[in-house]
């Protein structure tokens, strides 16, 4: 079963969805010893944290990882071995690093892409009252997963 939204994805990039899924799962396995599960279809949770990494070069676009504040705190605690109830700056820092590692791990899996694609440093936005618009040329690739019942959504918007 595929975890991603495929209906609007072009054939050119459709093969990348399982790689995006795998890249995300590996980050959680290797850095947090955690297994991500599938997110139930139709679940539209309110996300408080959006971590973004830009891609430039052979692939231009933006990869974002969205999750709730509660999951962000859990991610930080798993990465640092600290209190999962923390709400400090380490939560945004940890979420930014997750986006950075997912983006890097993803491009490392695509033949010919790794050498010609650079990543930006991560940017993390917290809160819900904002809209985000990327000047993408293609429909986004989306992977919807969950950790301990809390959703995590990875979006790859491709410019050209």
């Amino acid at each position, binding site marked *: 079963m595929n975890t991603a939204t495929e209906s609007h994805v072009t054939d050119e990039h459709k093969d990348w969805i399982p790689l995006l899924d795998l890249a995300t799962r590996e980050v959680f396995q290797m*850095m947090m010893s955690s297994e991500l599960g599938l997110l139930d279809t139709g679940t539209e949770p309110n996300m408080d944290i959006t971590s973004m990494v830009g891609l430039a070069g052979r692939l231009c676009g933006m990869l974002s990882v969205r999750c709730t504040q509660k999951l962000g705190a859990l991610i930080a605690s798993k*990465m640092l071995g600290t209190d999962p109830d923390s709400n400090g700056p380490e939560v945004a820092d940890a979420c*930014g690093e997750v986006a*950075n590692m997912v983006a890097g*791990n993803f491009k490392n899996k695509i033949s010919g892409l790794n*050498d010609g694609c650079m*990543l930006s*440093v991560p940017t993390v936005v917290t809160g819900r009252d904002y809209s985000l618009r990327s000047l993408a040329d293609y429909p986004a690739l989306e992977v919807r997963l969950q950790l301990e019942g809390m959703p995590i959504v990875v979006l790859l918007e491709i410019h050209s």
Partner: protein
Amino acid sequence: MNSIRALIVDDSSVMRKIVERSLNQAGIKLAEVLEAGNGAEALAVLQASKVDLILCDINMPVMDGLEFIKQLGSVENAKGVPVVMITTEGSEAHVVQALSSGARGYIRKPFTQEQIRERVLPILAGQT
């Protein structure tokens, strides 16, 4: 193996802590861990302190890891100190550039404890 002084260079404080914890879990005894948020900060740290090992990210603001390695040669305290890159940038070009600039090892994020152990311990033991 004796206790070592390590310098961890990464713009993410979370990642610096993860690397420190990974070194501990790899069985590397740390007498002291110094931290820097970018290459320029790391050069300043090294002007004042001697270390036995440097672990460095590539993508950082102000001064990235590749520029940092290039400038290390001008720092007396850094001469002969092994540098291991720990980065999401896994391209062959980056690996070649880092190694040709003097890095002794290259670890891609995400990484496992085993990878830290396998890449760093031989360097500290003088095997690479």
